[in-house]
Structure formats: C-alpha cells, structure tokens
C-alpha cells in the first residue's frame, strides 16, 4: 500500500494540552520494553539455569564436596536451604554482575543505536524523567534476576534435600523458616553492590552510546577490581573495592548478626553509585541526540 492519509482525518482538534507524565509512567514503559526483548530473557535464563545445573550436578555426584571451604558447602545434602546461600556465593562475583550489566549497559545505548531517543525526547517527557526511569528499570531488572536465581536455588535445593535447619558461619543452628528469611535478606543486601554496578552500567551506557562497550566496560570494572584485590601490597584498598562488597551479606549469616560489613558496604557503595548516577544524569541532560 502506498497511500498516506487517503482516509480523511477527523478535523484536527486544538492542540492537546500534553501533560508531563509522572516518572512511574515512563518507568512502566521501560519495563514493558524490557519484557518485549529477547535479550532480557537471556539474563533470566542464566539466573534460572545456573542453580538448576548446580543442584543436578550435586545429585549426580551424590556426596558433598570434600575439603569444602564453606560451611554451607558441607551442608548441601543436609538442608536444601544451604543451596541458595552457596549459589549466591558462587554467582555474586561474576554471573549476577554479568546479568545486571546486560541490561544496565544497554538501556540507554540501545535507544541511541535504534534512533528512538529522539522519538521519546520529542514528547512531553523531560530528559531527567527518562534517565530516572531507565536507571530504575535497569535496577529492577538486576534485582529481579537476583531474586529469581535465589528462588530457583531455594526451590531446587528444598526439592532435592528438604526444608531443614542449617548451621551459620558462626556454627550456630537456625531453624528452616529463619534460614529462609536469612536467604531472602542476604539476597536483598547483595543488591546494594549490585545496584551500584548497575549505576555504573547506566553511566557507561549513556556516555559511550554503545551497548557492547558499556556492557563489557561494566563487567570489566568488576573484573579489574577483582584482580586488584589479588595484587599483594594493596590490601589496604580491599575494604574500598566494590567487589569486596559483594560478600557483605555474609554478616547476616552469623550469630549474632554482624552488621559492620553491611553498613560499611552501604557507604562504600554510595561513594561509587552517587557520582556514577550524577555523572550519567548530567551527561544525559546535556548530550546531543544526533543519531538516527
């Protein structure tokens, strides 16, 4: 069909008093956009698959690992609730940051590549609202991946080894229901450093305008910091490395609860996330939208 407007438009009414929508409207559409993209499910697929593979591999092996360096590794066959803790320990340094980076690094750059940034920025929405909605959507995705992974690990662990009490890092025993609560809380506190990484991803996505560069860059920061943590003589830096904060949640699994790593993690992460978000916002606010 080649015609345009062969059908007469209804008389054009006076200009609509376009209203500035609230950020939650923009945020909701960001989530809908994420839900409509296959790439979104790649990360979720990883979050589901890794715990399942872990549980199946343990079932096949039939016994806990010898010389387990974690108290929870030794309890795999005693309680299904040891599985989500082990999985968080295993996924926290690389896989969960990878999943979060997939969306955080892409969320602004993809609009640049598609040329759709000009489409949304010529409506009634301010740049600050778009940036806030995108940052929130990226954070939501990262958080949902963490809890999805935790839910699968918990479900698979319980299905395989039952809903029983577990021993904490302090060797104290907590009931199954309390352990379940601690698993949830541990994942929630892991979000502090993860969402910090998301902030960095959003900054890189905004500044580089290139999805691949932003995703690799975000993950690269995690890897570089992890390498820095291994360099002898730099031990003094460790408490301030983002990667060290990935394990602050372990303070919850002590009796009594050790809040100091969590509180430390809070302010250290704020030092990373605050400037990243502010810089991303300022770049987004002033940048030329020249593509597409």
């Amino acid at each position, binding site marked *: 069909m080649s015609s345009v*407007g062969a059908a007469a*438009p*209804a008389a054009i009414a006076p*200009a609509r008093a376009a209203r500035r*929508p609230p950020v939650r409207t923009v945020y*909701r559409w960001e989530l809908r956009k994420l839900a409509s993209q296959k790439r979104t499910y790649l990360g979720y697929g990883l979050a589901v698959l890794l715990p399942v593979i872990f549980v199946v591999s343990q079932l096949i092996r039939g016994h806990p690992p010898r010389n387990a360096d974690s108290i929870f590794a030794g309890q795999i066959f005693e309680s299904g609730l040891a599985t989500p803790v082990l999985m968080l320990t295993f996924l926290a340094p690389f896989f969960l940051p990878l999943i979060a980076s997939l969306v955080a690094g892409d969320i602004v750059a993809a609009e640049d590549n*598609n040329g759709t940034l000009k489409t*949304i920025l010529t409506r009634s929405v301010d740049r600050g609202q778009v940036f806030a909605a995108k940052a929130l959507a990226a954070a939501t995705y990262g958080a949902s991946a963490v809890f999805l992974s935790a839910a699968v690990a918990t479900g698979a662990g319980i299905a395989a080894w039952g809903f029983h009490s577990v021993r904490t890092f302090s060797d104290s025993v907590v009931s199954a229901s309390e352990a379940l609560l601690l698993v949830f809380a541990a994942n929630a506190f892991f979000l502090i450093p993860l969402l910090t990484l998301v902030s960095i991803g959003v900054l890189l996505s905004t500044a580089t305008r290139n999805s691949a560069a932003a995703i690799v860059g975000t993950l690269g920061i995690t890897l570089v910091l992890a390498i820095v943590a291994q360099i002898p003589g730099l031990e003094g830096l460790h408490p301030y490395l983002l990667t060290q904060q990935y394990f602050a949640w372990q303070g919850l699994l002590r009796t009594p609860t050790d809040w100091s790593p969590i509180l430390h993690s809070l302010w250290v992460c704020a030092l990373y996330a605050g400037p990243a978000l502010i810089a991303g916002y300022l770049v987004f606010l002033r940048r030329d*939208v020249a593509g597409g």
Partner: protein
Amino acid sequence: MSDPVAEEAQPVRARGLVKRYSEVVAVDHVDLNVRRGDVYGFLGPNGAGKTTTLRMALGLIVPSDGAVELFGRDPMRAGARALRGVAGFVEAPRFYPYLSARKNLELLAALDGGDARAAIGEALETVELTPRAGHRVGGYSHGMRQRLGIAAALLRRPQLLILDEPATGLDPAGMRDMRELILRLAAEGITVLLSSHQLPEVQELCNRVAIVNRGRVVYEGAMSDLRRQGGAGYRMRTTDDDRAIAIAREQDGIERVARDEQGIGFQADEHHVGALTIALGAGGVGILSLAPELASLEDLFFRLTGEAPTADGGLDGAAPPSDGTLVEAR
C-alpha cells in the same frame, strides 16, 4: 490549558542559530521566521544543515550559539514544555522494532500524559495502518514507518508540525498522498515546517520558504516574493512577431525582449504590459496569447546557491555559492 504567551507567539523563531562540530560549522547563523498558518519550506541540498537546525529546534541538540523558540519557548530552557503543541520527526521516524505499531503509539501517548491514547485508532486510520497495527514495526517498510511517524505526530494534536523529508523513500503514489495529507492538515490550521531537498515538493506545498546552503540561509521569505526577485516575465504570441518585437523594444519598461520557439519573451511590470498591448493594437498587431511566466523555484534555487538540480527535481551535495546570489544570509 491555554497558554496566552504561546497563543500570541510565533510558531518558530530562530535567531543566529549556530552549530559547530570542531572545525566544521554545520549551521551558520540561521534565522528562521515561521508564522501561524505557514506551510514553510526549509529547502536545501543534502548536508546543508537542515536536519541539524530542526534538531536544535526540537531541543535534541544544543546550539553552539543563538537560540530558537517554539511559540516563544526555548527548548534549551523550557525542556519538554517548549514542545507543547509541537510534533513531528527529524530524519526517518524511528520506533521500537520489537513492539507493534499500536504499542509504539500507546507508549508515545503515555509519554504525552495518556490523553492521546483515545486518538490512536483515528491516527492509525488516517495513515491507513489499521490493518497492520498489531504487527511489529521491525517488519515495516520505510514508507510504513514514515506513515507511522505522521500518526505519532498527529497524536499530539499539534499546532506546529515539523517534518523532515517526509516523502523520502516513498513511492510516487505515497509521495502524492503525503503531499495531500500535508495540504489537508495545513488547511485545518496546522502550521507546517517542512524540510526538503525536493524542489517540486516545496513548490507545490509551501507559501514561504528558507533556502539553505552550506549551513547558511541564502533566502527567506514568501515564495511569491522569491519568484518576483527572479523577474516577472511574460510570454506572448502575435500575428506578426517581427513587428511586435520592434514595437516592444520601443516601449518604456519593456526589457529583455527575445524570441524563441514558444513566441516572444520579455520582462515588465503589469502597468507597462498594459501599455504594450495598447501599442501593439494601435500598430496593427493582433495578440494571440499573453501570459505571465514566473521563474520556477528550480531556476531560482540554482541562481541562489549554484546548485544543480538532479533529474528528479531533488538536490544533492553542496556547491560553492554562485555569484548570482540574490539575497545574502541574514
């Protein structure tokens, strides 16, 4: 809500607009005056700075110097508020390829506060995309995306429609229908700022025009004035062309008398043409036909910019300004 300032203000007013990219000056002190009810042509070859100017007008890129106001509001200062009553697209309209046309429009309506949602069906109907509204935009042809771009603009019920090369990539029938749609929208009171490198398009649609070349406006004003500057010419056929030429050359105010295959051409104002007809009659020369012959936009553009039109009436590439520039920038 009515906005008294916007009601009174000019739809587009640009003053000294400049955009530099390092050493390259893409837009060089451009002034634009789009008035209410105009179908305003922004004409120039590819790379002349048209799209960059429109992007600055829509607040997408920051001017290096100067300012542009839409209904009295500067997008750099007022943000999205400056775009109230304004819609359109620059370069090809872009949409989310993984969403359907309807979902794309729902998204855009939501970004306009949600009130436009009810108008989605009507907008899709206007551009005849209703049967394909549920299909993903990723599978759309270029022409369908252009039409969806118009639908997205209409959702805002604009008073000012900014269209950047809207007919590019359309087949001849699509181009014709796009022009008809623009004329219809203009007839309904929408001011249109139309960027184009297609001379026939601008000639057919626009009442005012800015001609831009190498980032500079070389003419801005009414199409009729532009043509007048090209010289008000006349062409006639008579019963005795030799005698007619002799009489015409003796008349005051009759200039550039010349004969060709179509008859006798000359330049004069209306008053002197009247005197010439009387003189021809008195001299026993019968007038078979006498018609005004305005210079075509194509001729004028060539004289203003030194550009050579392409076979399809389009303009391609940039050339140094000619010595025949009629109106200097600014």
